[in-house]
């Protein structure tokens, strides 16, 4: 079985969000970059777990980005995976990223393609669905559990207010979230091994974006919390009813 894990680079969850160049660019100053948590904790670790069960499994990692994504993909390789591909395209338009991944996926004939539920910076939640259309392959979003039995996949996904279990046949694309796997920390052996794992760079082939970011804005600051005395819950109820008008 061949698995392709899509890895993206995002600012650390505690990074200060600020913008430069007249609010048109994300301010990368002092930002720590991490593997998008959904990609690392859920997709990648799930692929590693499948390989631990069946050593015949081959795991490829893919990232679409500039050379600055290499430390991230090396870190992913330190957790596990056999080799990595970086498509050298700095365009972040989802349609461009998905087309680049689809081109690699077509060539590699993967049985399973894993993405995260969404990136924590642009929150597009789009790549898995786009790959579904580009590759004409079954897509199950928000997957929380996966079992492989030969060419059959048993998948559990989140639905509004519950869970749904289903059965389908490979190949499939999943977007992964909490439940798929447990977070792991790379060990020394993995970090050493990652240094010599192949990291192939492929030149960009897609250039026409369909969208362009015009500007960023910060939300208006909250006007400040109104404190209500702990002994006066009638007042809180009154405020919620008459001022906030939410109950």
């Amino acid at each position: 079985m061949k698995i392709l894990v899509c890895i993206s680079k995002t600012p650390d969850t505690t990074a200060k969000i600020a913008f430069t160049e007249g609010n048109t660019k994300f301010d990368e100053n002092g930002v720590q970059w991490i593997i998008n948590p959904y990609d690392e904790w859920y997709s990648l670790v799930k692929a590693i777990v499948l390989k631990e069960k069946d050593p015949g499994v081959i795991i490829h990692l893919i990232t679409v980005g500039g050379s600055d994504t290499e430390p991230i993909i090396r870190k992913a390789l330190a957790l596990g995976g056999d080799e990595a591909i970086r498509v050298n395209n700095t365009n972040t338009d989802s349609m461009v990223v998905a087309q680049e991944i689809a081109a690699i996926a077509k060539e590699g004939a993967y049985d399973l393609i894993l993405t995260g539920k969404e990136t924590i910076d642009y929150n597009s939640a789009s790549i898995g669905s786009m790959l579904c259309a580009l590759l004409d392959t079954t897509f199950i979003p928000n997957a929380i559990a996966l079992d492989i039995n030969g060419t059959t996949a048993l998948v559990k996904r989140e639905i509004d207010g519950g869970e749904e279990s289903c059965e389908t046949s490979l190949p499939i694309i999943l977007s992964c979230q909490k439940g798929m796997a447990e977070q792991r920390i790379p060990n020394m052996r993995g970090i050493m091994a990652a240094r010599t794992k192949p990291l192939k760079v492929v030149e960009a082939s897609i250039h026409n974006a369909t969208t362009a970011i015009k500007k960023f804005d910060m939300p208006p600051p909250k006007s400040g919390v109104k404190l209500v005395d702990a002994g006066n819950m009638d007042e809180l109820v009154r405020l919620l009813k008459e001022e906030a008008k939410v109950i």
Partner: protein
Amino acid sequence: MVLIYIDQDDQEIKKASFEAISYGAALAKQLGTSAEALLLGTVKDNVSDLGKYGASKVHQLNNIALNNFDASVHANVVAAAAKLLGATVLIFAHNINGRAIAPAVAVKLSAGIVTGACALPNTDTGFVVTKTVFSGKAFASIQIDTPVKVISINQNSFGVVVGDGTATIQHIDTPVPASKIKITATDKIKGEVPLTEANLVVSGGRGLKGPEHWGILLDLAKSLGASTACSRPVSDADWRPHHEHVGQTGIQIAPNLYIAIGISGAIQHLAGVNRSKTIVVINKDPEAPFFKAADYGVVGDAFEIVPALTAAILKSKAGA
């Protein structure tokens, strides 16, 4: 024409779709065109009622095979219908199903897409859509450059607008590919409003000390008719089920009222709830970071405050 995708579950139209129609109708008015809805499968609801939210027509493909959601099948059918009907803008709710198909539909229509929109597009020059980014910590204005455009809208960001129209129903007939997915079980929390659709949410954190103390929170939720949520450590410790976990790595919600009890307000928690209209924080530590993001705060012991708040709500309801 603006075409709005209607999401259904168990043959019931989801609330998120009413908001999507309201948004689509406002956009259609802005563009001087019509707002029409697209419904796949059969539902128990009265379909012409979708006119109340501003749809002049509902195009329905009442093939029961479509009652089970399959992203690949649904995206194929929606794209084919959009082409057939000549839609120029497609609107989806940014809920689980909407976000699973909107990007695929965009690919099939060679359309630019913005997911998680939170306001009507600015169409003065071009077509610019504002969406939340960095998990609600900022906004981005994104221009779509293609003739056909796809937008998915964040829940509770526009609101449901109710008028008195009725929609005419038109049946359409687009080929439905066979689904490769066999649904084997559905596990739903009975009688509860799904968290993502809830208007009122009561949420608990590690400050409640253990699962045995959740009774006071459940009583409060019941008095309000609210859904319940929790912070990540609470679901990690199995005090509460996983589907209640809100935040960056959990569910993102935007109810009208979010009451946070014994939750410190870590940045990753806020990322899931900061789009709530009104936030009430109950915490014994006046320095808890959550107070900075709150509209109303009560400093003190949750074990005393929460039952008192429940009593005050019941009293106010009885008086009303």
